């Protein structure tokens, strides 16, 4: 059995994400129930919107502790978009906010860090540059395009970054350290390439 739980903590619409997993034959549960999360084999931490709001909701529901314990016990966990950003120690989106601290690094604004004249948010299809081997990429190739929508990115995460996307600077596109991983882009909106990444996650990544 390979049950995947998408953690529903009240941020964003999970319809497309759940559909994308179903389309590749994954057994998926969308849940906010700690016991279901503990029983699942793999976890997805989604998220759209503002970091502070999302971090507060995770704390208020107590799911932050559950996620940290499950990830700490070696259960595969993938954060998507804001969910990936939440894996880091902190974010500087409108102030300074604490994240889950599962990965080393901080989330910083693009503003002032990419050349002027480039539009923010970084929105659209951009190519992945692999910086390290990862099982997450076993079905895709260097240069494949994925769909991004974000104004902040993870920085200081040299020990976990596995892919970047060029946008005036090399923006962190995907990370993995052992069983904890994440995509800044939206695999559920990245066509065949995105589904291939989700499939690799479902099948299992060598930690």
């Amino acid at each position: 059995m390979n049950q995947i739980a998408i953690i529903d903590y009240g941020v964003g619409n999970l319809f497309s994400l759940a559909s994308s997993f179903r389309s590749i034959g994954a057994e998926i549960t969308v849940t906010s129930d700690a016991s279901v999360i503990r029983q699942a084999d793999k976890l997805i931490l989604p998220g759209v919107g503002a970091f502070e709001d999302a971090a507060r909701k995770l704390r208020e529901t107590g799911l932050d502790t559950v996620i940290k314990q499950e990830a700490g016990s070696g259960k595969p966990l993938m954060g998507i978009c804001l969910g990936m950003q939440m894996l880091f120690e902190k974010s500087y989106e409108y102030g300074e906010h604490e994240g889950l601290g599962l990965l080393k690094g901080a989330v910083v604004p693009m503003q002032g860090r990419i050349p002027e004249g480039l539009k923010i948010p970084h929105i659209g299809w951009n190519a992945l540059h692999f910086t390290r081997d990862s099982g997450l990429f076993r079905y895709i190739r260097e240069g494949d395009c994925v769909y991004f929508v974000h104004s902040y990115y993870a920085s200081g995460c040299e020990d976990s970054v596995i892919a970047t996307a060029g946008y005036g600077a090399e923006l962190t596109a995907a990370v993995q350290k052992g069983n904890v991983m994440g995509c800044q882009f939206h695999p559920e909106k990245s066509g065949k390439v995105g589904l291939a990444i989700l499939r690799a996650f479902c099948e299992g990544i060598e930690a």
Partner: protein
Amino acid sequence: MITKRIIPCLDVRNGRVVKGVNFEGLHDVSSPVELGQYYSDCGADELVFYDITASFEGRQLFTDILREVASKIFIPLTVGGGINTVEDFDRVLKCGADKVSVNSGAIRNPDLIREAAMRYGNQCVVLSADVKRVDGEFRVFAKGGRVDTGMEAIGWIRHCVDLGAGEIVVNSIDTDGVKKGFDLPLLKAVCDAVSVPVIASGGAGCAQDFVDLFRAVPTVDAGLAASIFHFGEVAIPDLKQLLRDNDITVRL
């Protein structure tokens, strides 16, 4: 670097795509799900679905179909047509739309943009503007391009971006249907005025028109068209190859 996007637009009435011809391997050209899937497989970067239904029943049907589209097609989906309230945003976002485009609804109530952007984020709110030259200036038209609002277009678009619109679809009434190419002067004026993504619409008659668009206005982000794709005059894989041959960055 971000790729230039190619976006087919599907008009849907009573649950069916309004115009189009049969492509090889496509059983039902009027099925939004089948046609959308076909375009997605061909390399479309995004799809726009416009609901041109007037009736309540037709609107229900549209959201049912949208849900089916979103459960099968995994590229960004923009939905427009009949978006007048934040509840309308909610209705289509719940069915799997990623972005919602407003036109007449924003002209009647510009605050709709601000409210929706606050609730769902700027990236979710697309302003669609129908623009036509009148007395030497660009004017905004409402109600499907039939009514001159008297508003100057560039100022209106800038105002909507200030309110929270995260993307602009610029549809030139002057070039729409003429098939002689996009309205380059209008698109340049809009791109110079705002810093959010701009999607060009109206006038594409052949693949070369997209090359000319991205060359003449390098800051434009995407080209949108309907009939040339639906009638098979331009195949998306060929178009993208032509763009790449002309050193324009696209997703192949």
